């Protein structure tokens, strides 16, 4: 019984989350650098709120949503039954032990496996939520290592504007400000490109998507 009920619940829950996110954030998807096509991609975005991957997922057309799996921290999304249900069944998230925790399996493995199965990923290369005034934290190496193992996959920078204002860290009630999700032009790892050079380039590509409206914001 639960075998059928669980996926059904997950689908209903997903619809509800999409509708709720649209209402609260009025999210607008801006496809500036690429089209919403079903090519295999790693969407890498700035990270300021737990709702970030929900926002990207909502901004994707329904046909692209199913194959786009968010990468999320296991420590947060394994805690509690509801979170686990949302992460595993609703979003089919790839849960990873975040870097720096030492002993566990390499966090790259589950992501690389998903890419090997032809799926797309939603990834936050800053590794943790950015709650300060700097627009971006330094990128972790995961994006580079994935790009090396799957050099054919498009790396699409995605700038999320305002979600950190809708629901800042530590707050419970969202303020209904408007959010936007800007998709930039895809990058690929160049031949013989060093890790540092690649990460700097990826970071610059993401920074370049900052909308003019937030340029004037405190930084």
């Amino acid at each position, binding site marked *: 019984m639960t075998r059928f009920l669980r996926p059904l619940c997950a689908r209903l829950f997903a619809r509800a989350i999409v509708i709720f996110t649209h209402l609260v954030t009025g999210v607008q998807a801006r496809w500036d650098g690429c089209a919403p096509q079903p090519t295999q991609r790693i969407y890498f975005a700035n990270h300021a709120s737990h709702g970030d991957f929900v926002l990207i997922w909502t901004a994707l057309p329904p046909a692209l949503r199913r194959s786009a799996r968010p990468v999320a921290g296991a420590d947060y999304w394994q805690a509690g039954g509801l979170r686990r249900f949302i992460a595993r069944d609703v979003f089919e998230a790839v849960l990873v032990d975040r870097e720096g925790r030492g002993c566990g399996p390499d966090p790259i493995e589950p992501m690389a496996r998903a890419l090997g199965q032809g799926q797309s990923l939603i990834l936050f290369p800053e590794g943790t939520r950015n709650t300060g005034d700097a627009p971006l934290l330094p990128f972790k190496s995961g994006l580079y290592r994935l790009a090396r193992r799957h050099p054919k996959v498009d790396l699409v920078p995605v700038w999320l504007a305002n979600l950190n204002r809708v629901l800042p860290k530590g707050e419970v009630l969202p*303020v209904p*400000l408007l959010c936007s999700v800007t998709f930039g032009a895809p990058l690929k790892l160049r031949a013989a490109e060093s890790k540092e050079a690649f990460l700097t380039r990826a970071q610059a590509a993401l920074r370049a998507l900052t909308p003019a409206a937030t340029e004037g914001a405190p930084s």
Partner: protein
Amino acid sequence: MTADSQILWLFGGVGGLLVVATLIARLLRLRQTAGDAPRQSSPGVENLNARVDAWWAMVALLGLAFLFGGSGVIVLFALISLAALREFLTLTHTRRGDHWALLAAFFLALPAQYGLIAIGWYGLYAIFIPVYAFLLVPVIAVLRGDTQRFLERISETQWGLMLCVYCLSYVPALTTLEIAGFEGRQLLLVAFLVLVVQMSDVLQYVWGKLIGRHRIAPAVSPGKTVEGMAGGIASATLLGAALWWITPFQPWEAAALAFAATAMGFVGGLVMSAIKRDRGVKDWGWMIEGHGGVLDRLDSLVFAAPIFFHLVRYFWSG
């Protein structure tokens, strides 16, 4: 004629105008795309079509609200205020420390303002936001202890509340005015104001396209011309005079009020353009296809409504 049949006549007239506008827009598109080799229509014509289509939706929404009478109009404008306030505050510099103040603006001040209008408590709704919200927003923010850009952040939130909630709420507040001999017909004042101000925007656009030459404020709003402004305000004033039969006013009084409302609407549009320019955006939002955001459509109404309300209240309802 009863108020109901007057409203029907008004919506019938607006519907007729929209039919004509739709035909013109579609014909322009057809003229561009028809021919031996299929071609794309120009962005200008596509925008015109999108605008006209959005007008149908907006008129239908207003018509739906009118079906429910005064409370329908109050609920509609409360929702419009919500949409406008989020567009406005999205473009401000608020920080984490403003979260509670923003929650209070959205979920306390806005519903309270429209609630006060619903119960018709003029003495409080006329001062609630300029006095109570004005003082309490900085108090709530200061409790969070973030002093960086404090004055700027608070002022922006206060401006948002004043323009998007307080000023806009004067449109449904017209239904609470008590005018001798005009009882039960106040919805017509809402129809008069909205129709005159919105038609003034449309007519300014049309006059500007037809004979516009001299830019009136090139640094603020390069599209606006002296000819468009004068032609639009003059023809909307005439329209106001022609609508005197739905109001408690004489024709010349209706013209004077229409002039005041459309002149305020014009300068209001300039002010809102200056804010957009300062923030480096073209439109306030993306909610209305072809027009931009809710505030792009309502900027003139925001500035016209309070003045129109208080003129009518002072001279007719005193």
